[in-house]
């Protein structure tokens, strides 16, 4: 009898977290998966089981491949650059220089701004003729460019903005990583005649590998998650040149009202991100030195 009471109390304590998780994570995931296996319901046609048809049409959908490739290019174009910048910025603000606090804040400001606000700022930068970039380049006699309006420049433009937004965020992790390294290590290396560069490559960089791994995974996940700016800047255009998976899912579900196909796309994204997280736990973590 007493055991039952204790069990009940246990379940009661477990309930708040369990209910929230079930209601807002597990249940939607399962219904999304089920939706992806059925056709859409409409007035004239009832919902019917279609199996993997949704996934098959995904594979033959050129727009899907286009947005997936865009996403991969975005990841490739932004992650190494923002990590590199983040390390450099962290190294700079880790030193005892005048105005260090101000500089740290300046580097971190883009991260604090909401993505929509960032997009609005950059919309002004990129605007043809009147935008900051065009005004600057016109001084040197360059032609006006429609940065966000032409398929060849739109994705790189988005990349630059993403790097600007993300590098400061990653800097914080590198700064934290750098500060766990004992200053005596630098003194010891200095005494042995190690140059700044040598010290960075042989000591700081290897000791920052755990940070780099963490940042890498986060940056990859972020490159799929951040789409807010597309609403302001391009709406995925022109001709899907700047469209990304998450934005495509949004369009499919809420503009084209194709819930079934949107569900299939969502499951694809979910599996992709889950595999990334798994890769972190299973493979890469073992190869990285932890103190």
């Amino acid at each position: 009898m007493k055991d039952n009471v204790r069990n009940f109390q246990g379940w009661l304590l477990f309930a708040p977290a369990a209910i929230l998780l079930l209601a807002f994570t597990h249940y939607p995931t399962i219904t999304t998966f089920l939706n992806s296996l059925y056709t859409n319901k409409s007035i004239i046609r009832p919902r019917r089981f279609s199996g993997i048809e949704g996934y098959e049409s995904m594979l033959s959908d050129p727009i899907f491949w286009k947005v997936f490739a865009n996403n991969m290019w975005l990841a490739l174009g932004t992650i190494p650059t923002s990590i590199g910048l983040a390390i450099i910025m962290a190294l700079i603000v880790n030193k005892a220089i005048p105005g260090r606090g101000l500089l740290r804040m300046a580097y971190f400001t883009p991260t604090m701004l909401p993505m929509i606000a960032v997009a609005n700022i950059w919309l002004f930068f990129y605007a043809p003729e009147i935008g900051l970039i065009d005004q600057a380049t016109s001084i040197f006699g360059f032609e006006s460019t429609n940065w966000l309006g032409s398929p060849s420049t739109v994705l790189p433009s988005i990349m630059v903005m993403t790097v600007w937004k993300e590098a400061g965020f990653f800097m914080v992790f590198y700064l934290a990583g750098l500060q766990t390294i004992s200053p005596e290590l630098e003194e010891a290396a200095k005494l042995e005649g190690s140059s700044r560069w040598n010290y960075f490559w042989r000591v700081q960089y290897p000791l920052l590998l755990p940070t780099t791994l963490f940042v890498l995974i986060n940056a990859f996940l972020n490159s799929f998650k951040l789409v807010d700016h597309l609403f302001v800047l391009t709406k995925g255009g022109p001709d899907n040149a700047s469209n990304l998976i998450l934005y495509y899912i949004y369009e499919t579900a809420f503009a084209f009202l194709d819930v079934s196909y949107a569900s299939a796309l969502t499951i694809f994204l979910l599996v992709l991100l889950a595999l990334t997280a798994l890769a972190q736990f299973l493979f890469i973590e073992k190869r990285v030195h932890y103190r």
Partner: protein
Amino acid sequence: MSSIEVKNLSKSWGEIEAVKDVSFVVPEKSFTVLLGPSGCGKSTILKMLSGLETVTSGSIKIKNRDVTNLEASKRGVSMVFQSYALFPHLNVKENIQFGLKVRKVPAAEREKRVAEAANAVGLSDLLDRKPSNLSGGQRQRVALARSIVSDQSVCLMDEPLSNLDSKLRAEMRDEIRDLQQRLGLTVVYVTHDQVEAMSMADQIILLNSGQIVQKGAPEEIYNYPNSIFSAQFIGLPPMNILNLKKIDITALSNENQKKIEISKNSINLGIRPEHLNFSKKGLPVTVKGIDYFGGETVFKISHLEQNFFLREPRQPKIHLDDKLNISWDPEDMHLFKKNNQRFIS
């Protein structure tokens, strides 16, 4: 021949003077200890010697070469850090040969020197281990090996034993001293532990608030402390200091009275606990405490409200609150003047 010559060395950060006008000489192949309480500037002096800290004024010569403004790596010194400063991602071998790689020493010679250094500190079997898999003593050895392998004749050590437990500390003390003698190293060693200083040093430089209080061989400082600070910093329990105005001088032996009389303006009397003896005549005292350590017994005694210590090698049959008399030989008595300096007759 002197290996290191420090002249009028000072260091200040703005208003704060960490080191004030310090001069000393470290003879070649000797073991010099910079001793003092925390904040006395001893580590700052060591850092200035190594070149990791800039000098405000004064000069440093190493092997007759002025290195005052020279880069750390060009001074010809190696250093052992308090926290060992081992690179956590490199194994023992890589840690030892870090400097050799930086200096681009050829691989064959590198192998040979690493093997020798590892052998000298007994690390030959642990070369593949990471620092995180080593005990405190072993890490200490890696730091020593890294210093040895650099082949610099001057080695600076910054409280290298302070992170070890007391048993290991005693072992490493012997080992470092032995290593220094065997390899003929010139060592400058910073510590706040007077036991380390007494047992290892050829020369002790005692510091307080950025200034040298006394320098000399351990027995010289122990037997002839030039000030109350010096007398009390070295020795455990420290030297007893009694205010002459507050003791009954008439109870002392004639020789002692005479010696005190000669030094008219002395106001304090210093006597080491082991130089006090219980006796029939002499200063009347009451036993206030007894600490039995096995090899010795330390008695806390008091005379006219002044507490001090007496150390006996055996455990005499004496109890708390016993009223006894103590005496001492005149030559064991130190007298200090008003400015806390030693009275020299």
